[in-house]
């Protein structure tokens, strides 16, 4: 059930992202690429595991192969 609720949430958030992106573009124009990395919501994609632990992506790829 919870998974089913993720679809409308993802849909709404995706469309909200389109609105926010227009706001940033209108504010910065073509120079938007200059500060896109410093936007308040920009974070690293994945948190890193503690030192010594394998990276999750490599583990996942290895398991897949």
């Amino acid at each position, binding site marked *: 059930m*919870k*998974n*089913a*609720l*993720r*679809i*409308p*949430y*993802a*849909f*709404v*958030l*995706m*469309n*909200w*992202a*389109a*609105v*926010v*992106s*227009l706001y*940033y*573009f209108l504010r910065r*124009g*073509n*120079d*938007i*690429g*200059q500060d*896109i*990395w410093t*936007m308040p*919501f*920009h*974070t*690293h*994609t*994945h*948190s*890193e595991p503690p030192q010594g632990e394998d*990276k*999750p*992506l*490599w*583990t*996942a*790829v290895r*398991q*897949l192969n």
Partner: protein
Amino acid sequence: MAEAIFWISFVTVFYVYCGYPLLLLLWRWMIRKPVYKADWEPFVSVVIAAHNEREHLDAKIRNCLELDYPRDKLEIIVSLDGPTDGTEDVARRYEGKEVTVIHRPVHAGKAAALNRALAAARGEVIVFADARQQINPPAVRELVAALHDPSVGVVSGELILLDGTSQGAGEASDAVGMYWRYEKWIRAMESDIHSVVGATGALYAIRREFFTPLPDHTILDDVLIPMRIVLLGKRVVFEPSARAYDLVACCPEVEFGRKVRTLAGNYQLLTQLPELLFPWRNPVFLQFVSHKVGRLLVPYFLAALFLANCFLLQGFYLVLFGLQVAWYLSAFAGRLALQSRSMNHVAKPFVFGHR
């Protein structure tokens, strides 16, 4: 008036998400352009632009050194863009015959890093790869094989999102995988008809002769480069056997940030290549407008659909209004469910298209 706004909005939203894929399905059934692949081995430059990628670069370079391609016909160029976290030290460890490191101490953006890398590249074929994802060993060979077709200028690999949180890792399922598979299905059909509207940034290849330097601060090099090549009359095709692997984002906020960046990049693209909006210049005009521009416009049509429906609360329209309210309430409940889940530290992957 409200009725007209309602139906225009409804038709637009329906077309972007359902009508366009159905049109592609029919179009592909009528016209399917094959790609004439061949086994050839041109000199290839794999280009990796990196800013602060200390955690990923080591694995990425090792991954590239294990590619199934003759060593004497492959170079790896790591173009560093003002790293501050020790990325340079990682790259320098591999510097030598096969790996070239270009270091610029001042952060000038990915586009500038790619321009520097391309100026130094010797390859007839350039393979672009991001620092984070892992690629499968035959990927370069597969990309190059499709580039043998003279009508093809760009070959895009496939990005496979893995659910690293599940017991046995596999391709992400649920809402995540569903959306991403939908997106890839559209790209595959676009490729069969003529061209994909942009490549997968994690892995794509071009013929060197078609590259022209990118404007500074370009956000979507993986759309701008392919679209420039499409305007030259070449195809951008999708090659699913060249694979890059990544993990799905841990939480909606991360994916949201990524998404805003991508969509802002689409607005930037329209200013960089306005001819994409001219049907007589762009051979994939309909695909571009339906796939890229449509996604930018949908939220406004959704808002118009809801507002127009507020003035039409009888009979059939009342049912549709109820469905809309239920949809947005479900979205709100989905947000609450995810919040409670992340509070329990059981973050599930979350993603949606535009990669």
